[in-house]
């Protein structure tokens, strides 16, 4: 099991992580894409957010399934009222903490 030196694994992992990160920055044909693909790309960030939040904001806090959900809702509302991300996060952590304790 430990026959591979750890630094070698670290190195291989680093290379494997960097390949998908670097390709789009060095292959310039990816820059001249048709309008439809451009449109798709402009929607990627918001599409990413949805999948980054769900389902793990529920699963991470099991068995109290609603703890993370309440935190996420609190952050959304708080940021909607007063646009301060740090404040929203502090409120969100508090809400989640209370939900986990109750």
């Amino acid at each position, binding site marked *: 099991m*430990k026959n591979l030196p*750890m*630094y*070698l*694994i*670290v190195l291989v*992992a680093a*290379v*494997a*992580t*960097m*390949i*998908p990160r*670097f*390709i*789009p*920055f*060095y292959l310039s044909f990816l820059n001249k*894409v048709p309008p*439809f693909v*451009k*449109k*798709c*790309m*402009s*929607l*990627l*960030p*918001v*599409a*990413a*957010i*949805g*999948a*980054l*939040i*769900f*389902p*793990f904001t529920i699963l*991470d*806090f099991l068995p109290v399934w609603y*703890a*993370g959900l309440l*935190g*996420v*809702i609190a*952050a*959304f*509302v708080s*940021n909607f009222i007063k*646009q301060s*991300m740090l404040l*929203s*996060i502090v409120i*969100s*952590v*508090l809400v*989640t903490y209370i939900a*986990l*304790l109750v």
Partner: protein
Amino acid sequence: MKKDEGDFNFSEGFQDGLPILLGYFSTAIAFGIICRNIGIPFFETCLYSLTNFAGAGQFLAVNLFTSGALLFEYFIGINLINLRYLFMGVALRTNLSKDVKGIRKIIVAFGVTDEIFTVASMKNSNCLSFNYMAGLISSSYLGWNLGTAVGFMMGMILPKALQMAVGVTLYAMFSSLLSCEFKSKGPKVIVIAGLSAAINSFLILVLSFPSGWSFVVSMVTTAVIGALFMKEEK
């Protein structure tokens, strides 16, 4: 700091990265603890976070390590789980100022993560300066590596409820970003995010997809559906 080309400067980037710093710090603590528990030395643990700077990919590799995987299995597995960076990089690149080249390009490419990509995209600029990106990456990188080292040294977990509550940080950050987008662009933002959330939940909960794959499929499918059905665009 010299005046840079493009929108936003280093300190704005660093500040925008502070929520990520918090979130990464708490996630990386868990990574440090796991590495210590399965017997990876301190130096290698830190080297890992310094050279990879990738949340899910790192947890996966540690998993493979305990199951005695072969080198090419690491290589394939990690590539797959990080496939999403490919799409993110393509999208992010079009938002960067022209001064991002040479060593600067290497730094930005190195720093592409889910969170950094999302925050940078939400600035709604198509000319983000290198200094902004460098600031954003610096605070995030700091959080990730400090967290790894602290987690390894602590070697134990905070009170359970508190540890879990801090875990909401990144979700809260995404939620706040979504709220900003909703304010400026209206309900279609919620429709898109809701759709990808639904697809991702379905793939993971019902079809038991691995989360790396599921994330890529949900993100790309949603973007394509959105582009097909949404009329105007900005």
